[in-house]
């Protein structure tokens, strides 16, 4: 006998994500799910952002790391609440691990919560964490074909930081080709060009982030 089901296999993750989203909305905490390949510059972006917003925005961080807590260690000096999730080999975070991590935060004292997902362009984009939006980080040394090769992440992200633009002269990265693919995959996405390590583009990023916080707290 055949039993009809017609249910989304990710329902369990999705339901928990909606629960997390509702809770964060009520607590006025904006959550940003940062997704990139390993080495694109997620942790450096967080370091620079924590420095720039110290004393202005109350930041918390959830660090997803496969085996170590090195990223969490790098952020300790900013004296912000950090919860490290060691995925023990897992290639992404899911809404259940986020929900458990949130129990360790005093959410009344947080305005902005960054989730540094595991470095990977595929798996993390499948799992809604309950975030306000996804942020993609991609670096010029990875090549200009990443949006075309990984459309799922780029079609869902609200913004992409194109990092390491200072290294562009040493690579075959074509900004025209990158921008054309990006526009075809997600015309609504904001592209922010930056060299995070040199501070270039940080002002644009921080202003854009500030507008997202304003819109989030107004909505």
């Amino acid at each position, binding site marked *: *006998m*055949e*039993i*009809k*089901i*017609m*249910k*989304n*296999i*990710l*329902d*369990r*993750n999705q339901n928990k994500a909606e629960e997390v989203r509702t809770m964060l909305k009520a607590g006025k905490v904006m959550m940003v799910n940062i997704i990139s390949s390993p080495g694109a510059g997620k942790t450096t972006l967080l370091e620079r952002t924590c420095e720039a917003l110290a004393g202005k925005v109350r930041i918390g961080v959830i660090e997803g790391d496969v085996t170590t807590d090195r990223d969490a260690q790098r952020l300790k000096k900013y004296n912000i609440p950090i919860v490290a999730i060691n995925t023990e*080999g*897992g*290639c*992404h975070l*899911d809404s259940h691990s986020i929900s458990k991590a949130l129990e360790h935060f005093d959410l009344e004292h947080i305005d902005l919560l960054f989730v540094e997902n595991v470095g990977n362009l*595929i*798996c993390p*984009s*499948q*799992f809604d964490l309950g975030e306000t939006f996804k942020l993609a980080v991609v670096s010029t040394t990875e090549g200009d074909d990443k949006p*075309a090769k990984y*459309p*799922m992440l780029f*079609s869902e992200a609200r913004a992409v930081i194109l990092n390491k633009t200072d290294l562009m002269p040493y690579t075959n990265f074509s900004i025209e080709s990158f921008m054309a*693919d990006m*526009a*075809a*995959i997600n*015309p609504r996405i904001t592209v922010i060009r930056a060299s995070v390590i040199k501070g270039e583009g940080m002002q644009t990023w921080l202003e854009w982030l500030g507008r997202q916080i304003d819109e989030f707290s107004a909505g």
Partner: protein
Amino acid sequence: MHELRIAEDLAAMVAGYAAEAGLNKVVKVNVSFGEYIQIVPELFEAAFSEAARDTVAEGAELDIEIIPAEMRCLGCGSAYIPAGDLCACSFCGSEEIDLIHGKELFVKSIEGG
């Protein structure tokens, strides 16, 4: 790697629905995956057979239907199949588009007795 986690969720769902329907053995599981969902069918099959071990669905056949991506243009309203990597409307060229099919990840039905 995400195949394993999704396969575990599927195996748990199948066991739940089988118990609800009073099935003692599930012989076939029918699923639909969107073209854009980035799951490798061969890996998923292997992951599912591991995840279903020691459950009612152990050894069940997995039938994976791939649903092609389909877009709807918000400019002219046409529905179309995107060509290659690029998604702009093939009728009017507009880039204001919505994906209407391609991200499905459904379990359609289970068969057994």
